[in-house]
């Protein structure tokens, strides 16, 4: 994956809780065997509605998706991350992510910014009031800032994920550095497990 250090830009406010991965990318899109071309499927059922926020011209060009609590719950489909990323978002902000979605994000360089509920609500209100609000996410410092409203907050990011995002590291390559340990572990497995 590509390294990511700073995400700077504007955000789309998706002000609802429990946005599951079936909404992010409906199952019809999962039949594809490719890894690209999922941007058209992003929120495809909701996008048919004129008043859906992604159709609002005021938010055109935004590169941050601002969600409510329990964003990305449900299915393990990594296609949800691919769709968000391929549409043009580089980060998603939410007070709480579905765990598989969050994990999948970090494998693709989509920054999951898990902030406290007060920060999430302040950002939601501010972005709804001003679509041009500039937001900066700093992966190195694990901070999210919106200077125009005096907001500066940190988010939860483990050292190992920060390191992988900043350097665009391939997990498989890292794990294969431990191949001796895997070999030796396999030698110690119970015989009934084969």
């Amino acid at each position, binding site marked *: 994956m590509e390294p990511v250090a700073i995400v700077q830009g504007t955000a789309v406010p998706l002000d609802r*809780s*429990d946005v599951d991965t079936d909404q992010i990318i409906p199952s019809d899109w999962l039949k594809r065997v490719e890894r690209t071309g999922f941007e058209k499927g992003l929120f495809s059922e909701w996008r048919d509605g004129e008043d859906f926020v992604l159709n609002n011209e005021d938010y055109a060009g935004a590169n941050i998706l601002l969600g409510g*609590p329990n964003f990305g719950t449900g*299915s393990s489909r990594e296609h949800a991350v691919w769709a968000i990323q391929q549409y043009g978002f580089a980060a998603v902000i939410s007070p709480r992510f579905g*765990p598989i979605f969050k*994990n999948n994000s970090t*494998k693709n360089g989509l920054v999951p910014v898990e902030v406290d509920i007060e920060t999430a609500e302040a950002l939601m209100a501010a972005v709804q009031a001003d679509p041009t609000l500039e937001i900066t996410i700093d992966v190195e410092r694990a901070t999210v800032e919106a200077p125009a409203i005096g907001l500066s907050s940190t988010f939860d990011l483990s050292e190992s994920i920060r390191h992988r995002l900043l350097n665009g590291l391939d997990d498989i390559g890292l794990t294969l550095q431990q191949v001796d*340990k895997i070999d030796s572990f396999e030698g110690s497995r119970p015989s009934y497990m084969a």
Partner: protein
Amino acid sequence: MDTSNSAGSSGPKTLIEKVWDRHVVHAAEGEPSLLYIDLHLVHEVTSPQAFDGLRLTNRPVRRPELTVATEDHNVPTADIDQPIADPVSKAQVDTLRKNCDEFGVQLYSMGDINQGIVHVIGPELGLTQPGMTVVCGDSHTSTHGAFGALAFGIGTSEVEHVLATQTLQQSAQETMAITVNGELPEGSTAKDVVLAILGAADTGGGIGAIAEFRGPVIEALSMEGRMTVCNMSIEFGAKAGMIAPDETTFEYLKGRPNAPTGAEWDAAVADWKTLRSDEGATYDREIVLDGADIVPFMTWGTNPGQVAPISANVPDPADFDDPGASDAASRALEYMGLTAGTPLKEVPVDTVFIGSCTNSRIEDLRAAAAVAKGRKVKDGMRTLVVPGSGLVKQQAEAEGLHTIFTDAGFNWREPGCSMCLAMNPDKLAPGERSASTSNRNFEGRQGRGGRTHLVSPAVAAATAIAGTFATPADLD
């Protein structure tokens, strides 16, 4: 206590920590643990890009014999002797066949007696065993936790990681005890237990944790019932759900094709008996329910935490204290076409779906057939009874269940995921309402604009007969 911290400590451990600790290949401060994976299940939807990744990097599948694949999500449940009509679905299934052939992975294809929903075939073939780590590119992998395995869903990048290394990098999780005391009232089932748990935990209550289900109600469940409960762990956000193995577990496994035999069986059982939480082991979170309170439940909204007893009315969003929950309830009622205050038992249903990795095992079909026997499906009701696997179908037919269903007017199908997620031709039309034994009532889950209510197999069958939501007791 983080599970990673327990390694090497001599204090009492939970089942979760015991299974986690015995799979740590490598652990270092500030890094996720590297866990060994004993069983990797694969299906056609989340694997093609992972196999592509292996090809791009010239990596083989490290342990093809610990990897088993099946075709389930896309497969039609009628006319399976014909080629798959949808060219995109067909291409995906063909891709799996090609990948399994190229990388040496065992595949159970449409029409094979061992084919079926990935979370049905793993246990019934004896592949899933206590104390194992089991993963699959599918969030309902938590099902296998019913055997005391640590089983969880992963994304496609992690599928590729397991294929290449037979390990996964995993961050420490909290531990969560879900204790169900007492006993269930007559007429309540494992599905009602997990719907009640979802009502208590909500969709996010398990995020960051691995759950252990325990207590007399859980211990009294059959393996099928335990699988139903563990299956829906992800619906409250838990990474996995586990139940300590016991005689019920061993009895289920004994003699299955991939279960150990002879002296190996004895050694395995002796080992499996140690997989219980120690006296005094502590959990980071706990939920306690009284079995006596668990009546037949159903969902009324668009996430699995929005549950109510079938005897209740459609809730009023104004009655929710939390503004977020109230807002979500309003939105859900609008999508579901429901009015607050309406008795749920008066809501008419168009389609009944009995199937999915939650409720398509032999015991589920027996429960539904017991209700259907000698009765007739309501005029105009569409029904699908979809066994979870070829073996379940064969067993059901040997018991004559298919005749009970077809005599009552139910539609008896071939195995697959079917209308749980509508990737095959079994879909709801816009505005159509289902009573479904599956696991997700998300918007559009069973077809664009479709309205899904999650129920137990017995309630699904009773609803097919009554035409509105009903328990078997309501039919008398």
